[in-house]
């Protein structure tokens, strides 16, 4: 885990309102695993006060990339960064996805910016010899960011591209028609979508890992600000930042879904 000022290499709009920002960090590029995140201080000073957490999207040699949606002041500022600007990063953080188990087929399901951890995840899964199918959903076709992914199946809420409906419905339909044995699901996206994925995985008894998002103050386990309810266990809550953000779907309760 490191804290460093890094130089922005590039910021690019890859889909409507969706940006990829890259920077150079040998320390991070060498150590980050799929599903881990970094906590970004978008500028010095008190506004905004807190860091912003982003999944690592891709690692390419010494370069690290994040992908984000412009939703508020932090991401507005990030999107406006230029080559050479300095941001401060803290990472890699959190528990990575389990990419090395005994499964053979990896099913990646992403809703909206849930696409973020998928390229780095796919890369590692490929290295581990897994077959991959990617299901990616968005509100509309212009909000899809599908670079660096293969075997993609697309769903949009407005039907402007691919399947007209939710990405989970698409995945369910596809997998009914093309059953995959010894499979494992990896999902990231809005809470409702994760709940649907989780219910589906349980119904077909496929192991499933979810990557969660939630308000975070520190990202490193010192504020107790990011609880998620456990299904059972010694304590009622787990911390998303240090015990997640990836969780086995059978171990947590998704509230607000």
């Amino acid at each position, binding site marked *: 885990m490191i*804290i460093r000022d890094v130089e922005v290499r590039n910021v690019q709009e890859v889909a409507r309102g969706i940006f990829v920002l890259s920077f150079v960090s040998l320390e991070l590029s060498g150590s980050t695993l799929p599903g881990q995140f970094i906590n970004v201080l978008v500028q010095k000073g008190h*506004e905004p006060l807190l860091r912003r957490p982003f999944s690592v999207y891709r690692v390419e040699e010494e370069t690290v990339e994040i992908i984000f949606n412009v939703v508020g002041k932090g991401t507005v500022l990030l999107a406006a960064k230029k080559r050479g600007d300095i941001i401060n990063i803290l990472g890699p953080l959190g528990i990575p996805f389990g990419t090395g188990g005994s499964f053979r087929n990896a099913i990646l399901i992403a809703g909206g910016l849930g696409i973020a951890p998928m390229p780095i995840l796919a890369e590692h899964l490929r290295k581990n010899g897994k077959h991959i199918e990617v299901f990616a959903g968005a509100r509309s076709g212009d909000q899809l960011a599908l670079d660096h992914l293969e075997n993609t199946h697309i769903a949009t809420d407005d039907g402007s591209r691919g399947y007209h409906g939710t990405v989970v419905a698409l995945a369910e339909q596809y997998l009914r028609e093309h059953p995959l044995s010894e499979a494992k699901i990896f999902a990231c996206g809005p809470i409702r979508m994760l709940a649907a994925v989780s219910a589906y995985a349980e119904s077909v008894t496929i192991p499933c890992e979810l990557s969660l998002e939630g*308000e975070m*103050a520190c990202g490193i*386990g010192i504020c107790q600000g990011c609880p998620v309810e456990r299904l059972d266990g010694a*304590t009622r809550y787990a911390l998303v930042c240090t015990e997640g953000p990836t969780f086995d779907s059978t171990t947590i309760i998704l509230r607000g879904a």
Partner: protein
Amino acid sequence: MKTGFVLRNVEFKNRVLVASGTFGYGDETRDLVDVAKLGGIVTKSLSWKPRDGNPPPRIAETPSGMLNSIGLANIGVHAFIEKKLPYLRTLDTRIIVNIAASSVQEYCDVLALLESQNGIHGFEINVSCPNVKEGGLSFGTNCDLTAEITSRLRALTDKPLIIKLTPNVTHIGQFAVAVKEAGADAVSVINTVIGMAVNAKTRKPKISTVTGGLSGPAIKPIALAKVYEVAQSVDIPIFGIGGITNAEDAIEFLLVGASAVQVGTANFIDPRTGVSVAEGIESFARDQALGDVGDLVGTLKAKKDMSVLQSWL
């Protein structure tokens, strides 16, 4: 250059600690922070039994600040002794254990148990806790009760006893006087300020408990005024807390009368903040040719006939 200070025979190597609830139990950041450069670590508040804390969301950002409603989530004093204290004992800094409770008796039980352990240098008492007997009103807004907790705990320990005062009262100086008379060695000023944030679109409060505790740079002016008020009221040492992010902030607290400071929210942005604050204070004092950082304490020039026009030219 003298940087340290002494509180009831315990020596602190410098005047910068990290605040309760903002540095975990000290082990989470072991790769990042050289805690030997801190005056001390104040642990997360501990209660007798483990506490789950409040449901999410527990955190909301506000202008130059943040709200929290952690709900005193903690592993409980027994797990602390078993799992956290052994590591803390290995650290070359002072360990202050912060205690939270929902009854006077619970405060006493927790402190008595900790008193039997090695490696703890002092206690800080979080009185901003709901008192079950009074329907959840915080102990810390009741002066008599705050004094009672202090004197009960004083009888149980000969280590430094620090009472952490809440700013959410009309006259904080009266509370400082009461706890001093009840035997406190020092006061910590301030805990978080009651605040609230709302999502206009969903019409919901941004944290699950509706109101929460405001911290960070936004409250620094409030904290400075409270420390100043307490410094005018009592002569025991004050730990100044509230919105400190750099050495200059910390020096402001020393000038208004704090003997030491604690860094809170800033740890979430960078857990090394306490170390850089300590280093920055030292070099400031050196630049001013002071022999002792303590020479800054309480030296505010509070003349009322100040310059009409600050010069930028």
